[in-house]
């Protein structure tokens, strides 16, 4: 084996070892810095049913984001993401008008989360929930 090919071979070995070392450092570092996935942090949220009156909304944190529970005028419940689908601001519940307003760019949503005005491109995402024994379990 000539000295040039030996040099290339050793260079390749060194490069390979360097790449393995970089991966051994880089992977833990990436995992350490990566945000926790919403699945990992999505515990169930329990809210007593009496805490939310007819026509009211209750905001809470769910899966690392903001969510809202609404009891509509007809008494039915709905859980929605409170993050506006336009640019990610948090919507506000307007009890008198029974709709959601996004204060950033005046997007409007119905109590069901459907867009009724302004720039939002799509409805607010729905969140599954169940009601049993006087408590509402979200997630």
């Amino acid at each position, binding site marked *: 084996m000539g000295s040039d090919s030996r040099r290339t071979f050793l260079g390749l070995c060194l490069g390979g070892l360097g790449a393995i070392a970089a991966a051994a450092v880089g992977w*833990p*570092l990436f*995992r*350490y*810095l*990566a945000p926790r996935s919403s699945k990992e942090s999505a515990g169930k949220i329990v809210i007593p049913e009496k805490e939310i009156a007819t026509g009211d909304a209750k905001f809470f944190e769910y899966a690392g984001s903001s969510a809202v529970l609404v009891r509509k005028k007809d008494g039915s419940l709905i859980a929605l993401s409170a993050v506006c689908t336009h640019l990610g601001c948090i919507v506000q519940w307007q009890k008198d008008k029974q709709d959601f307003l996004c204060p950033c760019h005046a997007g409007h949503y119905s109590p069901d989360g459907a867009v009724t005005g302004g720039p939002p491109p799509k409805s607010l995402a729905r969140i599954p929930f169940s009601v049993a024994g006087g408590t509402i379990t979200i997630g």
Partner: protein
Amino acid sequence: MTLLKSIVDWVDVRIGVREVAEQELTGYLLPRNINSWYSLGSILLFAFALQVASGILLLIYYVPDADKAFKSVSYIMNEVPFGWLIRMCHAVGSNMMVLALLLHMLSVLFMGSYKRPRELNWVTGFILLSMVQGISLTGYLLPWSQLSFWATTVATNSANAIPVIGPYLVEFLRGGKLVGAPTLGRFFALHVALIPAGIAAMIGAHLFLLKRTGVSAPPFGQENTSNQWQGDRYHYEHHPGGIPFFPVFALEDLRSIAIYMACFLAVVFFDPYLFFPKDAFIPANPFVTPAHIKPEWYFLANYQTLKIFPNELIGLSLQGAGMTFLAMLPFIDRGPERHPLKRPLFMACSIGGLLLWIGLSVWGHLS
């Protein structure tokens, strides 16, 4: 390669980067009889960089609040992916760095490298040792465990022995009568900002002095081992016909760093709790003092000295005198001879001092 060469050419014609490389790397000649002990400085630089990197990563999740600190450390250890690895690297790294620092100091001592004109190199090195001890002490409190809390209580309390200002000094250090939330705040600021900045500045000064005086030749394998400098004018110690720093000694440095890393990772992976007594896993409780609370291994000799002398002031003064003697060593030991075997008095004193330190540490550990 052509692209790389073009980039280097582009930079070179502007700032003469090849000239700097020639001067500082390939043309920077070291004594032919240089040995592996000279790599300890590079190991320490590497260890310090590792401490800074792991410390910055820990800051992402650590909360410097007395109510949340322990929980945040538990969270790092148990919940954050690879959080245990980052924390163990930081905790084990601090101990290994002190060990490397002590070895560096011993090699300088035995090879007589502290002698003139290198008095300032020794003094800056000594200041670095003190600052590393300071950063270790302040970092010890941050996990807010029983060990942290009570070790800091004992350590800060020793300042009480200083006449007149002692009690006020203790209160000033703690930010209150007892160790508490204000202590955590000030120790945190010292640990992550003030002392690291001081260490970085002092490393800069240490390296600057090394560059100005030149590397000392080891006193081994030479006929004349006495100090040649007359002390009348500035002299840079050249090593004509020596070995180039790059690539020869840089590879030696790399090998030494690899050996250090092997030892360091062996502790991190196979005995991560080597430096953690069980009280390190219990949250701080200001109302319950655990039995046999002890400082880190490198403070055990100081701890035992304070225990031996019933009068705290005498114990503290002796330690102060010992540290002052060590700091002033180049100004006290002014003989020109550098070979350890040609300095019997020095050898007897330093080996005696070392054995005393080890003996006190073992006694402190077992008592």
